[in-house]
């Protein structure tokens, strides 16, 4: 494959004239912003719950909707972060640092406006980077063999274990539990059924979608059910949404810098929007012109994280599309959506499904445009939705989870998978085991297993095969650094402190 074959971009141009793309993207963004803005409904959960809505649709239309959800939910989280100091999604945590003080000064509209514009620019830059970086990386990835895939999968799992809040050991355990879920079903090499407990439904493995809906949707609702009593009310009037030109000039440097941070961090395995936005905010605090005023409610403090988290969306899609290795929980769920459409992400996708890949670029671009329009026009109404009583919201989402899980393969069995995953997810949340590594492990499991065993088969059982190939060795060194590095740094710091 040539590095920059223009066919890739041209083969999907006709999608621009397909009105369904616009409709799907518009509704995706709209639903995404609403769910993102509601506290407690994360972007990951939103995508998981809505995947069943996209079954009957063509893959291109389905992804126009899902990518709209993705961009919309990541952006929507900022609305509640600004208005009530509760980030709607984890990636909006940094936004509340300056967004909420602005809101307290009566400048909520201004903050939402800045957030919308910054998210739009960040999202736009990420589409551009995705368009050029993804085909290049895919052409490199074509040369990867089974050993390299083993290495990349291990990087993904170890990074997500490290960055998940709490103990790294718990993160790793979650990842292994995900891999264990992945062994249910027919052995890919010998054809022997494993752990199917006599159920024909399990022959092809546990369906990832009901598990994801259970872990993210159902278990989150079970957690929230114990504290539904309070109602949030936003009384503030939202005005001055469209920022004046001088404000735009003031933030443009911040926005571009943060967008690049966002794209790069998004593209790293397992580091998604929440890390990107925190790092961008941190950079602003160190290098920004008004670093001393950060935290008091200045527009740079909203612009930096919001540009970064939306910029990370395109970045996070790069490893998912080109290698078939999702960068974080959100893209893992999106990958689940691809797989049920019969599409296997990876370098071959770029050769065999050019129009589809091309349509992904277009969908992401459309979602950025709609995000800007919907954000600026609709902010007033979304602010009112934040007060929507949870006693109506929780039952509605639970029914979506139940019906959606059934609809994946018209099977009641999947409802049971959903309920069990929901309870397991709830227990894990209560024991502070992170959920994201399970989802990643489960999605990566089959791929990891077949590559791992294939490598060993070809090398006739010689484990050295993983360190004999230079790229594979490099990946394994990264894994070791990721897992051991933080520990060594900690010791090192302690030693320095003691030395002083």
């Amino acid at each position, binding site marked *: 494959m040539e590095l920059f074959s223009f066919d890739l971009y041209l083969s999907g141009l006709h999608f621009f004239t397909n009105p369904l793309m616009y409709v799907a993207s518009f509704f995706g963004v709209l639903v995404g912003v609403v769910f993102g803005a509601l506290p407690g409904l994360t972007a990951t959960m939103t995508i998981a719950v809505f995947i*069943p*809505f996209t*079954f*009957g649709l063509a893959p291109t239309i389905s992804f126009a909707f899902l990518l709209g959800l993705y961009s919309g939910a990541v952006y929507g989280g900022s609305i509640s972060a600004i208005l009530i100091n509760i980030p709607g999604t984890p990636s909006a945590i940094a936004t509340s640092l300056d967004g909420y003080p602005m809101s307290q000064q009566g400048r909520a509209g201004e903050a939402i406006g800045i957030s919308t514009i910054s998210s739009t620019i960040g999202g736009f830059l990420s589409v551009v980077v995705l368009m050029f970086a993804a085909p290049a990386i895919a052409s490199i990835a074509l040369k990867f063999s089974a050993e390299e895939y083993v290495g990349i999968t291990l990087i993904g799992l170890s990074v997500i274990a490290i960055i998940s809040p709490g*103990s790294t*050991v*718990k993160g*790793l*355990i979650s990842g*292994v*539990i995900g*891999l*264990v879920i992945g*062994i249910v079903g027919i*052995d890919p*090499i*010998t054809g*022997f059924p*494993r*752990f199917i407990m006599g159920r024909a439904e399990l022959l092809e493995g546990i369906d990832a979608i009901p598990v994801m809906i259970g872990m993210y949707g*159902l278990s989150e*609702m*079970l957690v929230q*059910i*114990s*504290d*539904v*009593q309070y109602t949030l009310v936003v009384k503030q009037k939202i005005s001055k949404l469209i920022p004046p030109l001088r404000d735009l000039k003031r933030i443009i440097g911040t926005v571009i810098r943060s967008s690049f941070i966002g794209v790069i961090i998004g593209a790293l395995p397992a580091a998604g929007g929440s890390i990107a936005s925190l790092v961008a905010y941190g950079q602003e605090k160190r290098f920004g012109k008004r670093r001393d005023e950060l935290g008091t409610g200045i527009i740079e403090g909203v612009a930096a994280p919001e540009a970064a988290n939306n910029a990370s969306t395109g970045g996070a899609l790069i490893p998912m599309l080109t290698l078939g290795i999702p960068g974080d929980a959100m893209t893992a769920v999106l990958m689940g959506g691809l797989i049920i459409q019969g599409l296997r992400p990876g370098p071959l996708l770029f050769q065999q499904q050019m129009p589809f890949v091309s349509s992904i670029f277009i969908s992401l671009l459309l979602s950025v445009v709609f995000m800007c329009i919907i954000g600026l026009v609709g902010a007033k109404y979304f602010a009112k939705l934040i007060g929507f009583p*949870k*006693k*109506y919201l*929780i*039952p*509605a989402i*639970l*029914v*979506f989870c*139940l*019906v*959606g899980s*059934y*609809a994946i393969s*018209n099977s*009641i069995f999947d*409802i*049971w998978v959903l*309920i069990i995953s*929901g*309870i397991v997810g709830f227990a894990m949340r*209560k*024991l*502070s*085991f992170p959920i994201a590594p399970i989802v990643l492990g489960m999605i990566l499991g089959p791929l990891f*297993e077949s590559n*791992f*065993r294939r490598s*060993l*088969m070809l090398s*006739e*059982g010689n484990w050295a095969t993983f360190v004999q190939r230079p790229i594979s060795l490099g990946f394994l060194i990264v894994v070791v650094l990721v897992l051991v590095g933080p520990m060594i740094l900690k010791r090192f710091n302690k030693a320095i402190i003691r030395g002083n």
Partner: protein
Amino acid sequence: MTRKRSDIIAGIVLFAFSGLLYIIAGFMPTRQGSVQALNTGFYPRMLAVIMAVLSMLLVLETVRKQGQETRTTTPWWKTKSAFTMFLATLVLLVLYPFVMKLFGFATASFLFITTLVWLLTEKGQAKPVKILGIAVAITLVVYIVFKLVLAIPFPMGLLI
């Protein structure tokens, strides 16, 4: 139960689970003389070993943590209303597939939403008309999306 104790228990349970996984994987067919990785039980066994090591690390890590942390808030299962709500929701969830098979998915959804909204509403504040109205509205959305637009074949119940 403190976090420390629950972590140790979790570690032990996971260790037992990996032992079980290891034993079951041993019953899977093997081929004499060929590469081990070809055997069906090889990969599950490998995961079992990794999990066993990690669960022991969890126990060690927890034991080594200095100082017993004290829990300031009441655990969720001890506040009566939270626990009752949790149990009630679980019961409703488990009943859903049965009601769905018997009466159809729209009826099941309607009953599920009505009951749960009613349970979540503070005592004395329940307005039956409003609750029923909301339940009908949500059920309608689900019905239109899944039955009419996506044409999912739901089990034929006695009702809809």
